[in-house]
């Protein structure tokens, strides 16, 4: 860690005193990770960005009156979750109600896995590019091994090796984060 690193807690304190530079720092620090997290709840990139921007706007609006003494990142993620659920609720009202209830009980059950997920996303960000690419083509794009092998011009054996090495790296990374 460099010497110039300012803790979240210090940033929040400065924000409380209307320090716009600290506000910008906190924004830079959390914007993308909060978006990643909210995306996993809403599955829509634009909505995720709207929700996170909203969160930061509210934070600035209320800066003088808000006081956070617990861990700041925990607070941000929880607030983001709440806003995301509200967003979902307002959206779902246009569809039918029983569907919305299903969705909510589903959301409620996932609470414990969130810390894991947030940590995991940070770890995937830091994988070597090739490892990440293989993992994502399979997990997110839903491509078969053969398709990946053709696209990246590597053998199926290499793909498997890449996946194994990703798993090892992610496991170590998660352990370092205390998960």
């Amino acid at each position, binding site marked *: 860690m460099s010497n110039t690193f300012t803790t979240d807690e210090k940033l929040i304190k400065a924000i409380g005193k209307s320090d716009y530079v600290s506000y910008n720092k906190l924004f830079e620090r959390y914007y993308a990770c909060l*978006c990643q997290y909210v995306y996993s709840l809403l599955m829509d990139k634009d909505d995720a960005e709207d929700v996170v921007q909203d969160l930061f706007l509210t934070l600035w609006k209320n800066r003088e009156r808000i006081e956070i003494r617990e861990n700041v990142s925990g607070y941000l993620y*929880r607030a983001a979750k709440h806003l995301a659920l509200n967003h979902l609720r307002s959206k779902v009202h246009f569809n039918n109600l029983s569907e919305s209830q299903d969705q909510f009980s589903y959301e409620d059950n996932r609470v414990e896995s969130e810390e894991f997920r947030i940590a995991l996303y940070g770890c995937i960000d830091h994988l070597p590019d090739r490892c990440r690419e293989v993992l994502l083509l399979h997990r997110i794009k839903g491509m078969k091994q053969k398709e990946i092998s053709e696209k990246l011009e590597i053998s199926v054996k290499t793909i498997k090796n890449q996946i194994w090495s990703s798993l090892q790296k992610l496991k170590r990374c*998660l352990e370092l984060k205390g998960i």
Partner: protein
Amino acid sequence: MEEQKHIKDYIVDYLLEEDAGKGVDPVLAEWLAEDESNRKDFDLYKKIWEESHLYTESGAYDSGLAWEKVDAINGQKKSSRQYLRNISYAVSGAAASLLIILTLSFMGVFQKKSDVLVRMTADYGNRSEIVLPDGSLVKLNSGSEVAYSYDPKKKIREVAFQGEGFFDVSKSKEPFVIKTAGGLNVRVWGTSFNLQAYTDDSVVQASLVEGCIELESGKEKLIMKPGEIAVFDKNTNEIKQVGGILSHSYGWLDNKLYMEDMPLSVVCKYLERWYDVEITLQSGLGEDIRYNGVIQEETVTDVMEALSRLSHISYHVKGKHISITSK
């Protein structure tokens, strides 16, 4: 080494082919049964595999662009805030001292807790909204304060509260308890409701929209069902259910004041809080004049204009001060 390599292939194959509905290979199953730590590692790989499904690269979010947007909106707000601040400088000393008295009288409730996590106030003339660390949402009406704390030992979410607020409490096994002045505690199970508990009012009123809450003061207890309204009398310590239209009690969320046979003195109390003004009433007038209906006006002068049309009163505005006399 040889065997280790072997197992790794089995694990990767399992993950890659899982969607095809293929079961666990006997070799893998044997390895899993061998050692607890094997099983643990395997479960972790599986979890990583499943959870990575909803990952998006952080690079996909342009925080620079987003900052420009947020910065632009904040810029607009800053100027309007500046404007508001200039106005509030003009607030008379009397109003300021009123606020201080209100704050002091509440020190008792608010300073006891040293482990307060989040605190939020809405001054007279302002409203605000806060998301508590547990995800609950509170909309605060003017002249209100909320302080949230969490006791990890007792696993209780505790809120010291005064004023009026609309609570949307998130569901959790951990109890959520609101403490108000006058000794009334409200126990909450994931729900939404309006709570009016101003220090200078003699009653506390709760209106339950959904879920379940319990009002408790000493031995007095009342469990409320959705749609019910209940009041707690600070003087007699009595809790009882009352009639009324539920949605009227949180009309303030839409800037509406519903009046059902409401004396002028009570109307004025609302206006003082909502608009941060001071109203002086000609003696005897406060209880004699009563209103029915709803007002929804932008400014306090509009409200006064509406009231003077409804009844025989005239009003005079001087800065933050309004005096009302009979016509």
